[in-house]
């Protein structure tokens, strides 16, 4: 059997995987109303929609980078950390950021998808069939690539086009090796780390201090993905570093800089645009650059070849080998229903990277911005603004948690509906979790900022004034989702199966969380007055959202 047959079979496997991802039949979910023959088509359509969403985000990032490159002449006039940067350095910085974000976003998307791929069992089903080994490996590899087809195509096509539109066709061609490497590394990293998560995190035993160990693993593995947002914060510092290194002429540190992925691929378009001398490389530097480009490109191609051969092996072998070990004694510590939901969600998140990311991200973001404010000079007004912006970001990010934690319910949705668990308990448990993450993130950033800018009253009042808005946003989103789950019977599953719902329901959440922040900005006068008005707006929102979410058919299960 050849590639054509492998492609056909991988299409069948993709349909089954889509069904599992969308309808979660293996978790006991019931088929939705409507003719059963339409289910497969509907599942595939929903998966395509979600891929379009992910590809759209990547396209927007590329367009944004292109926009930045277009205004580079104006931006380079601004010193970054006291250093003036050349156009070549600025272009390198922007393209480095773009490639890093593309790797991180594709990788993160893969981490969401791979547990579903491994748990769906679509690959083991094919094994007993009379299909030769080579075709089975091709089927598995093609299935994996098809999960990323639209996002990967967006990176491979849109990035060169956007770069060409701003810097010219030669620069567009020069970025092609970079996007190939970005896609190759991201897909291979997703496979390796996804498997790692399934084995070491999802497969980790309970009890003892293992939850802490799991969260530590998750933080370590989320750190690179955090780069996609962290880079935005670190960009001025990075540009200053590159400018300083390049400004001193050829050096070992310069050579090291151009050998670190993805910088060499970002340097190529800059050199093509601004000439070979623009980056100040000598013969050794040019050699290092060429070797780095060739080496990374070869590694990326090898990554694709490796993953094509490995998906079958990883997808068929049991991801979690049970290793029974006697437990000396165990005890149950029941809590109230709402606390039980909160604890259950945290435990599930600690074994599922996609959900864990949502818990960890705002906290890491708070640490990063908090450290940034700590490093800036004392008494700086920018520090004050940055700290408030960090808390605002944590509040706005919190609006994505409602849909995410609601998605956890789908894991055993049917079983949950047979328990005497009211919508209200589920909702309160999830809202409490969102509030806790917001408060921890705010606490970190404010704690670090207070060392330099000692204004505890205003900071604390700001964070607390926004809290009702965070609660209102979560209640509003979860109220909408519970209504939808009751009428349609299908909750959101993950990024690749119901991303649109998460995005749509986040809009009213963002407005709710954002209104008090807008009020704070608009109110003239002292910060105390602005915080007071902000708090009033937030409390008003909570007064409206709570009856909607908690008062809807109390006592009914989702």
């Amino acid at each position: 059997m050849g590639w054509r047959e492998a492609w056909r079979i991988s299409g069948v496997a993709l349909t089954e995987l889509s069904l599992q991802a969308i309808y979660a039949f293996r978790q006991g979910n019931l088929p939705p109303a409507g003719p059963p023959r339409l289910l497969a088509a509907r599942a595939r359509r929903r998966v395509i929609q979600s891929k379009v969403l992910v590809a759209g985000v990547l396209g927007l990032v590329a367009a944004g980078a292109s926009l930045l490159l277009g205004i580079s002449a104006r931006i380079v006039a601004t010193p970054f950390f006291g250093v003036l940067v050349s156009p070549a350095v600025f272009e390198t910085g922007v393209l480095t950021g773009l490639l890093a974000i593309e790797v991180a976003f594709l990788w993160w998307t893969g981490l969401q998808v791979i547990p579903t791929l491994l748990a769906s069992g679509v690959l083991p089903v094919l094994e007993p069939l009379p299909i030769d080994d080579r075709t089975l490996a091709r089927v598995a590899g093609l299935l994996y690539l098809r999960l990323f087809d639209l996002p990967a195509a967006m990176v491979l096509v849109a990035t060169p086009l956007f770069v060409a539109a701003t810097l010219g066709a030669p620069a567009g061609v020069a970025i092609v090796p970079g996007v190939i490497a970005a896609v190759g590394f991201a897909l291979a990293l997703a496979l390796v780390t996804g498997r790692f998560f399934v084995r070491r995190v999802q497969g980790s035993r309970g009890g003892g201090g293992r939850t802490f160990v799991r969260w530590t693993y998750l933080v370590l593995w989320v750190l690179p993905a955090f780069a996609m947002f962290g880079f935005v914060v670190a960009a001025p510092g990075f540009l200053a570093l590159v400018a300083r290194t390049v400004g001193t002429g050829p050096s070992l540190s310069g050579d090291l800089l151009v050998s670190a992925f993805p910088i060499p691929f970002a340097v190529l378009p800059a050199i093509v645009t601004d000439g070979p001398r623009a980056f100040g490389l000598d013969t050794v530097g040019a050699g290092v650059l060429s070797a780095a480009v060739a080496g990374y490109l070869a590694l990326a191609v090898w990554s694709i070849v490796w993953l094509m051969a490995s998906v079958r092996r990883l997808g068929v072998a049991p991801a979690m080998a049970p290793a029974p070990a006697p437990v000396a004694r165990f005890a149950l510590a029941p809590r109230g229903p709402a606390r039980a939901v909160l604890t259950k969600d945290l435990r599930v998140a600690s074994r599922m990277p996609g959900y864990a990311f949502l818990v960890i991200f705002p906290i890491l973001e708070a640490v990063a911005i908090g450290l940034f404010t700590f490093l800036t000079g004392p008494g700086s007004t920018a520090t004050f603004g940055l700290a408030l912006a960090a808390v605002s970001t944590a509040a706005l990010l919190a609006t994505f948690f409602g849909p995410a934690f609601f998605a956890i319910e789908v894991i055993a949705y049917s079983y949950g509906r047979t328990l005497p668990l009211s919508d209200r308990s589920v909702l309160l448990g999830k809202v409490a979790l969102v509030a806790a993450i917001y408060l921890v993130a705010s606490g970190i950033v404010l704690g670090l900022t207070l060392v330099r800018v000692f204004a505890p009253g205003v900071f604390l009042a700001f964070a607390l004034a926004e809290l009702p808005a965070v609660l209102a946003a979560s209640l509003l989103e979860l109220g909408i989702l519970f209504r939808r789950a009751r009428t349609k019977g299908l909750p959101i599953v993950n990024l690749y199966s119901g991303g649109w719902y998460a995005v749509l329901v986040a809009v009213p959440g963002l407005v709710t969380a954002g209104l008090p922040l807008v009020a704070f900005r608009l109110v003239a006068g002292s910060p105390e007055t602005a915080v007071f008005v902000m708090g009033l707006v937030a409390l008003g929102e909570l007064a409206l959202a709570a009856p909607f979410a908690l008062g809807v058919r109390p006592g009914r299960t989702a």
Partner: protein
Amino acid sequence: MARADYGPDPTPLAAVELSVSYGERPAVDRLSFTVRPGEIYGLLGSNGAGKSSTIKSVVGLVRPSHGRVSVFGLDAVADSLRTKERLGYVPETSMLYEALTPREFLEFVASVRRLDGPTASERAKSYAAAFRLESEIEEPIASLSNGTRQKVLIIAALLHQPPLLVLDEPLNSLDPRSVRIMKELLARYVAGSGRGVLFSTHTMEVAEQLCHRVGILDRGVLRAEGTLEALRLRAAAGDASLEEVFLRLTREDEGLDSAVRALEGA
């Protein structure tokens, strides 16, 4: 839960004119049956006969398109929370939070059912020991075999000692030892207690050994109901086994020989 608190009616389960349909497709058609106090009632039927749909409407997973279900006199739709407090359910497929361990899952169920710690722990320990689950109690459910998952679901259903147990093919993946324990446990569970068990199976031998009465479902319709003796009389089957009675009452014995002969030539 004390017997006096079971509900306004001592009858554990009553289905009246119950119909369930998925879109245009009817799965259960005007089904009426009762599980009496102290009784294990078996729902028998071939694949697709409507057993699971009936059970799902009892536990609140499917809304009946017609008729009503009452649990100890409480309406399963209008009073769903109080109904669910009174029943323990073992589903046909393992519907669990696979990211949790059995201990974490049982703790969640005990919390939702508002059990106190010592009671929940004692019961969980006893059942885990009986089903030899202690060594897997801290393993992620995702890594457990189907049989072990089934044990977890059985323990979760029994944890609050519900007055009504609803079991959908509960013995399917269990090992022989656990099957024996379940049979003994269920017989003792209902004896003189006022409790009831609704039990679905297509294994006639199990139903014959375990159930006080059985209802035979065929394409969503109740063909016959009663004790094994009553069914034998109705089917004019002498001292035939339940399997033969079942095949005769559902007319699935017609063409059986020719189907087997056709297989010989396959």
